[in-house]
């Protein structure tokens, strides 16, 4: 099967990545402290102010929805499942993918074959379809969502790291280290893992953004976090009918989603840039 080309998306400029990083940071803070900013919660209804337009800098900066709920509150609270679930899934997927890659690289032929096959099978079915099957039958709780997103993302990590590890393990310096007496865990810790770590970090950001997109897609299809708890994809879906009138209900959370995904990618690319060893011979990024 063809290998995934991991080419940097963009040359992450200093200012661009700074901007993206600050946006991510500010948003994470706001999401984490949503409870402090909006102590009344995401569900404070007030029918007298239904479909209030965004004032941007006044009260109700992002307007309200069909129940008169503050959209900013909903977007910030909605970031919790969206970001939280995706982040956990991304970490799990990276760990799982890395473990699988290590197992395939160091476990010898049979393991390589088995894990590779599993990855091939997994790749052959669109994740979203697996997610639909599982979630529509298991119900869409946090745990099944994390499970589905993890299952959907680990292959990418596995493939990237598998290729990298295969290249690294074949490098003379690994053999040289072996001759110098490094074996098993020592070899892993001293030479193999450090070589794979930067790419794992990149894979982590990649997984984060794919998981976020998938999570919100599921939310949009009604298989994500169930209302009344808000979730980005779900808010977008809930406002879709009102696009012509109260466009902000859909567009604002959607824009947050897009901005977040872009920021994660920019930051990820920047990390990749920074981790690249200048002049390194082993193709390590």
């Amino acid at each position, binding site marked *: 099967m063809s290998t995934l080309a991991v080419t940097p998306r963009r040359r992450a400029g200093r200012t661009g990545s700074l901007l993206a990083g600050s946006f991510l940071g500010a948003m994470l803070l706001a999401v984490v402290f949503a409870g402090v900013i909006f102590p009344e919660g995401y569900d404070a*209804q007030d029918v007298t102010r239904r479909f209030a337009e965004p004032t941007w800098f006044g009260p109700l900066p992002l307007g309200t929805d*069909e129940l008169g709920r503050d959209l900013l509150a909903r977007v910030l609270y909605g970031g919790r499942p969206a970001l939280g679930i995706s982040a956990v899934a991304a970490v799990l997927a990276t760990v799982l993918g890395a473990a699988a890659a290590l197992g395939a690289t160091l476990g010898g032929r049979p393991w390589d074959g088995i894990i590779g096959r599993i990855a091939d099978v997994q790749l052959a079915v669109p994740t979203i379809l697996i997610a639909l099957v599982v979630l529509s039958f298991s*119900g869409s709780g946090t745990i099944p969502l994390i499970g589905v997103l993890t299952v959907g993302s680990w292959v990418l990590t596995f493939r990237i790291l598998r290729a990298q590890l295969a290249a690294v393990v074949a490098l003379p310096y690994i053999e040289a280290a072996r001759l110098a007496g490094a074996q098993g865990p020592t070899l892993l810790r001293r030479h193999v893992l450090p070589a794979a770590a930067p790419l794992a970090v990149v894979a982590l950001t990649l997984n984060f953004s794919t998981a976020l997109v998938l999570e919100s897609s599921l939310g949009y299809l*009604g*298989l994500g976090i*169930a209302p009344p708890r808000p979730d980005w994809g779900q808010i977008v*879906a809930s406002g*879709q*009918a009102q696009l012509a*009138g109260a466009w902000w209900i859909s567009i604002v959370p959607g824009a947050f989603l897009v901005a977040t995904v872009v920021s994660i990618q920019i930051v990820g690319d920047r990390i990749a840039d920074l981790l690249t060893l200048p002049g390194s011979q082993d193709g390590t990024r």
Partner: protein
Amino acid sequence: AVTSGTTAGSEQDSSLVIGISRKLTSIDPAEGGSIDGDATLARAIYSGLTYYDPELQLRGELAESWTQDDDTHWTFVLREGVTWSDGSPFTAEQVVRNFERFLDPESTLGNAAAIRAIISGVTAPDDGTVVIETNGPFIDLPDRLAHFFLVNPDFLQAHPDELVALGTGPYVLESVDLENGAVLTRNPSYFGEAPEWERVEYRVLETEAARVQAAQAEEIDVAIQYEPASLELFADSDVYATGNQWSSWNNTLRINENVAPLDDARVRQALNYAIDKQALIRDVVGADVEPLAGQVLSDPYDRVNPDLEAYPYDPERARQLLAEAGHADGITIELGLSTGSYVAQDPVSQAIARQLGEVGITVEITNQSFPNWVERTRSADDAPALYYIGYTSGYRAPAERLRIYTSGNGQSHYSPPDAVYDDLVTRVTAATTPEQQQDLVNQATAHYREQAHAVFLWPQPLTYVVRKDLEWTPRPEHWLVPQEFRSRS
């Protein structure tokens, strides 16, 4: 009406585009399906022995007339000269075979059980008459048959597992795609008055967004099941009129009494007292409906118990009842919703959660896809403590409406089973006169209100968007019958 693009010309080749809010499940009317989905299509392709006219008067369709011979025997005289849309004659023997499909004990048809519960046998003494024998007295039989469509059994046998249909209705099925809709054309050999539209297109618009946008793009002539909030989008429309009215669909929160402390009637009553139905209707539902009067029946569609009243909004009383039941410091229960099934369900549920919260009942709302939700509501140990549900029917038969709430129903979870109510409903079914039936209905509903086995809400609003140049009387059952649309010119 949207004129079909392919046949634009001088001909009066008109078509009607109807948005339906659910996927079709089958083309065989025996398989159940919802009234706003499959049954709406069936109503245009097939005919029944009886039907309700737009004023809700029961009339004969394929039956010219009927008489009750004794407590359990009814004779239906068939209309003469009726043919199937392929020109073959419609016969009494075919009617008999239609019923036999359901009466076969091995039948896997979705509606078989419901029919078998009422009817024990059907015969055709001659070509123009059919005699139906019921299990016991059942005075609502002609009403019941208004939602029983007759298919051509020979055709069905010849085309198993195919998405084709042969009926006697005003329209012929041209093509169907269960996920996306169907196209019908006028049946030239229809026995009744020819409908106005040459061609009818049903378009599946499963989501609110799809329905709203289809109207915004002016791609449909009519659709129902809009969220009340969406109707405001068309308030100033030149093209569409909107409506929001009562329907025959009665909504309640059903209660899983296996979940403590809901086995305590006082707690269930407290639930009923704690919800301000009037305010919710005013603020969220926005329809001209009245709260259910402490029963699962509603005026004017059903025969109701006129003596009952809705539980008033009385949070004090609710708190007091809770305290009496030993839950002064509150309880926490789940409210299970099925995604997108009922108009205004989400805002209503969230408002209900707030109101219940004020008397110390913390509500956790869960949302599931319809299939999963149905499954859960049917499992005694896993059903949500409360679940938002509405039942409708295509005919008026009080016994059938009340039976849904008896202990034997898959979605009833009473603790212990309510033998009194079950017995009363059995007797309603077997009533031999309307007066007797009314009396029993009164007893059953009064008992049920007292036990507060459910939280009584209100009839589900019928919301619609329809082209201003169309004349149409909305059907409380949610039928969208193409032959009932007329242009206003």
